[in-house]
């Protein structure tokens, strides 16, 4: 069993979001970088659990980015990956990134490819679907449970207004979210072991960027919170009804 887990470097969830150079670049000043929580807590941990059940399982990690991604890849290795690939390219285009990962996936013949349901920086929720299409695997998005019996995966995924349980023969691509696994903390043994695990830097394939970021905008600041006195609840409801027209 070979599993590929796709991880992305994102700003910590509490980061202040600011931009520089005339709002064309994300301002990294003071930002703590983390593994995208959906990739780490759900995709990677579920892969580790599968390896704990079947120790012959091999977990590969991949990210697309510069050398600044190495610390988060090492952390992912400390949690439990066997080997990591960093595709040495800088892009914000989903297709470009997915196509790079798909190239690696085609060479290595994975049984499962896990992604987080979305990255918390660009929120496109596009990576899993694009990779699946490019490697021609079925795609299960927004999975909350994943079990494997031989070659049959039983998955639960969120659909409009509920959930769906389905069986799919591997190989397949799964985008993972809450429910599929629980967050773990790397232990000292894992951190030491991660230092010697292979982190291979791969040069990117020639692929076109189909989109590019022109600039960023910050939402207009709120006018401020209108406070209503605790003994005047009818006034709050009047404001919501007449001023905000919210119901």
């Amino acid at each position, binding site marked *: 069993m070979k599993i590929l887990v796709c991880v992305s470097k994102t700003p910590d969830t509490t980061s202040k979001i600011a931009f520089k150079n005339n709002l064309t670049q994300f301002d990294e000043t003071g930002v703590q970088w983390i593994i995208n929580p959906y990739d780490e807590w759900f995709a990677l941990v579920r892969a580790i659990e599968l390896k704990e059940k079947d120790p012959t399982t091999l977990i590969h990690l991949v990210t697309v980015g510069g050398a600044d991604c190495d610390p988060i890849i090492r952390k992912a290795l400390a949690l439990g990956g066997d080997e990591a690939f960093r595709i040495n390219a800088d892009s914000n285009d989903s297709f470009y990134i997915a196509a790079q990962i798909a190239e690696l996936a085609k060479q290595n013949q994975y049984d499962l490819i896990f992604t987080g349901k979305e990255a918390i920086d660009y929120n496109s929720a596009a990576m899993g679907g694009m990779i699946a299409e490019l490697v021609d695997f079925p795609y299960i*998005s927004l999975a909350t449970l994943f079990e494997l019996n031989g070659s049959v995966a*039983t998955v639960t995924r969120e659909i409009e207004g509920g959930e769906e349980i389905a069986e799919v023969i591997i190989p397949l691509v799964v985008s993972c979210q809450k429910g599929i696994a629980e967050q773990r903390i790397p232990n000292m043994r894992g951190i030491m072991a991660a230092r010697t695990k292979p982190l291979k830097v791969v040069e990117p394939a020639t692929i076109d960027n189909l989109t590019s970021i022109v600039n*960023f905008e910050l*939402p207009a600041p709120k006018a401020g919170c209108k406070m209503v006195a605790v003994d005047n609840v009818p006034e709050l409801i009047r404001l*919501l009804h007449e001023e905000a027209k919210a119901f």
Partner: protein
Amino acid sequence: MSVLIVLDQSDNHLKKSAFEIMSYGSKLAEQIGTSAEALVLGTVQDNLAALGKYGVSKVHQLSNETLNHVDGQLYAKTIAEFVAQTSATVVIFSQTHTGKSVASMVAARLKAGLVAGAASLPDTSNGFIVRKTVFSGKAFANISIQSAIKVIALNPNSFSVITTEGTAEVNQLNIGIDSSKIKVTAINKITGEIPLTEADIVVSGGRGLKGPENWGVLLDLAKVLGAGTACSRPVGDAHWRPHHEHVGQTGVQVAPNLYIALGISGAIQHLAGVNRSKIMVVINKDPEAPFFKAADYGIVGDLFEIVPQMTAEIKKIKGIA
């Protein structure tokens, strides 16, 4: 060249998000001087000709039961073939569960640039630039799509439904479909509740409610408002409320017209899931709760005293006995 709008369905009916993307797609078509057409996959029973009132000139339906379950591979193959036949240059989805399963696959198949999570109409004055939410709603990015075919997935609740006069021509397609590799064995629909992502109003509770036995006040308020109910992460983690109600960075992201937060302090991770709401109301006994900084209206006080008064007052206005 036309704008193709792929409509979401659930249980053989179109959803609110479908009306939003038809409105969005026909405005875009008008802007770039072409026509808007809709595509319905599956055995939807609604009156499709009537969809003309959302601005689409034609509605194509591929009425095949296999397509009632979303299989991204089958959807992408079918949609991509249809795009090639009709020479559509822009394909529009809603960024719902279905859209998240399908839009990316269609884009990859067509080698089309994708903007997923679009927040407004594209700027087509010089190129094709789409504004989307980034950093969990804390900012926007303007994304230029360079490819010949463009794929957009619009955030639900971010574009108002526009209706006009008109009837659409309905075209039943006859295209063969492969069997699905995803074998659906069970479906559990959440019944009797308003799906959070579609709710116009959401009432949400935090640790300030002190325990699951106290949820009655919140449910009463939600009922008079016809609102969906949600909760903060600690409440979901403590199993006071079901997991699907958890809104926030790692839970469901909502964008209702009105979000009412009861006893939620407003941690940044919670705000990331709700900050696309149009109006936010906060009831909290702690005047220092960070949520007040993000809110539009607030009361500092005991929610157990305030909320029943809110419910009673709304009943008066709505004329509910």
